[in-house]
């Protein structure tokens, strides 16, 4: 554990992080304007994750926190990953059984 978690981060670092975050915002807007197909979302999330890491590590002092706090942070994201990941295993592996009948039931489709 580092000195009781009282690490003082210098304003210069804060300013640098601010600049990096603004740059990231600009980048993500520019990247969105180019058609990258499915990679648009990947890139956008990548930039957002980097921005988030900067905020957590420096603004929130995650880098200077005791190990216990770091474990708490990581486990929060780990559980988020469990929730997203395992739910997506359902949605990404569903393959709706194609209806082999040429005429779908007429009575099926009169929803209010």
């Amino acid at each position, binding site marked *: 554990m580092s000195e009781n978690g009282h690490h003082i981060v210098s304003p210069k670092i804060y300013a640098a992080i601010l600049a990096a975050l603004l740059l990231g915002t600009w980048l993500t807007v520019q990247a969105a304007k180019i058609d990258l197909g499915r990679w648009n979302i990947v890139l956008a999330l990548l930039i957002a994750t980097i921005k988030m890491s900067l905020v957590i590590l420096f603004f929130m002092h995650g880098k200077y926190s005791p190990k216990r706090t770091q474990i708490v942070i990581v486990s929060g994201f780990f*559980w988020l990953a469990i929730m997203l990941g395992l739910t997506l295993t359902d949605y990404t592996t*569903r393959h709706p059984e194609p209806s082999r009948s040429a005429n779908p039931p007429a009575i099926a489709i009169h929803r209010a």
Partner: protein
Amino acid sequence: MSGTNNPGGEHQLPREHYLNATYGIRSWLLTTDHKRIALLYLASVTFFFFVGGIFATLIRIHLLTPAGYLVTPETYNKLFTMHGVAMIFFFLIPSIPAVLGNFLIPIMVGAKDLAFPKINLLSWYIYVVGGCFVLYSFATGGLDTGWTFYTPLSSIYSNAAVTPAVIGIFINGFSSILTGLNFLVTVHTMRAPGMTWFRLPLFVWAHYATSLIMILGTPVIAITLLLAGLERMFHFGFFNPAYGGDPILFQHLFWFYSHPAVYIMILPAMGVISEIIPTFVRKPIFGYSFIAASSIGIAVIGFIVWAHHMFLTGEATYAAIAFSFLSYLVAIPSAVKVFNWTSTLYKGSISWDTPMLYALGFIGLFTIGGLTGLFLACLGLDIHLHDTYFVIAHFHYIMVGGAVMGYVGGLHFWWPKITGRLYPEFLARTAAIILFVGFNLTFFPQFILGGLGMPRRYHNYPPEFQVLNVMSTAGASILALGYLLPMIYLTWSMRYGKIAGPNPWPATGLEWKTASPPLTENFHETPVVDWEPYDFVHRPDLGLTGSKPKLPGKLSPAHGDD
């Protein structure tokens, strides 16, 4: 009371303790003493237990005849929904953690209070506010969606008072979160000198695991019900098929919390049993580290099994297989606990006191409940048993046979600590046996009903199911008596019970080193722990002078796992 009292004759209550430190209604409603807050919780969860119990009684009376005996279908649907909501969200989830956990955890770790006493009080108020919303919903139109609130029934089709109930459960979630947060921080930062992680009582380990679930799972149910509520109130479409939304997604989110929530109910009860057994067997618990680790294991694995509630919703086959596999894994830590408890009895010195009867009842019922879970985790059998009475019987064995037995047993075990007085032993043993018999008669027939295919939540049923339903109702009436008895004699003993003294059993935990009832600060001075958990051999202060059985050669004590 087979030798349960300390030698040294009559005891007296301490001159000053947390109950008489201050007087007046304000001193209770504004208290930050974890022990008083525990009693506030005790009163409120007991209230909800009886609310839920009345609904259960009406349900069982109604099901006496195939055509339904008592109420209209609408009312019946409201009864089982309100029974579920009251029991799960307002009794089972807070019962052991918020009552016994609140009272004991700071004392067990040797602290003066929880880390955040004001937040602790706040969490009780949040519980009360949430409870009021739900009672308002019960009183104005009731709730008929099932406790699972499946969309789109709850968000669009139901005509009942769903919105206030959803708001109430949303609010109540924060009570749970704050309790869990408080426990986690307390265990991490407030332990007394010498109280290392592996000297923590298993009750604390169980609550640590429970708190993990509370803080990681509860926010998800909060947001899920909030989304369903928004869908109902403002016609937003998150899960609404009319907008292309997916009702199955609601189930994913719902069970992400609600399956681990089962472990919120059972883990603390396992913690209680892990305290009771070594005390009344007077020997160290078998495999301390395995029981501690299995609590954490259950909490973690419990988070990755939720979609086994959804095998037949059209979930992907691959996902179903993965979730079935993971569900089977969670059986192992539960089995480890049962095997270790049973082994603890070996070569013990077993007394037949009431808490021990509850502990043995727990082992039996939890074993049946756990084993029948294997049927439901099984993909092939779930096709047949899903949404039948088999499920009802299974989770009542876990929740009533497990969690409630643990809770009532724990109340008896720590009653002398909480009130300073002993309960009447004969009545208490009688009640324990009545509960055990009544419980089995109520719920065992429901396994057979489920195997026959009787679906749950039916206000009437085909006549061939009647015999088993009548048996179940008969059992329920015995069960109801079993719950009324402790209610009466425990209340009686608060005033007239025999004075217990600081350590009546005697037990080894820190909570028994202070007076009964404890003083507001728990200890006169911060205790220093220099003994191993559940060690009776090196504890002359317990005053046990009887013979010690010889160590068997085969099972040596030193395996490094204590």
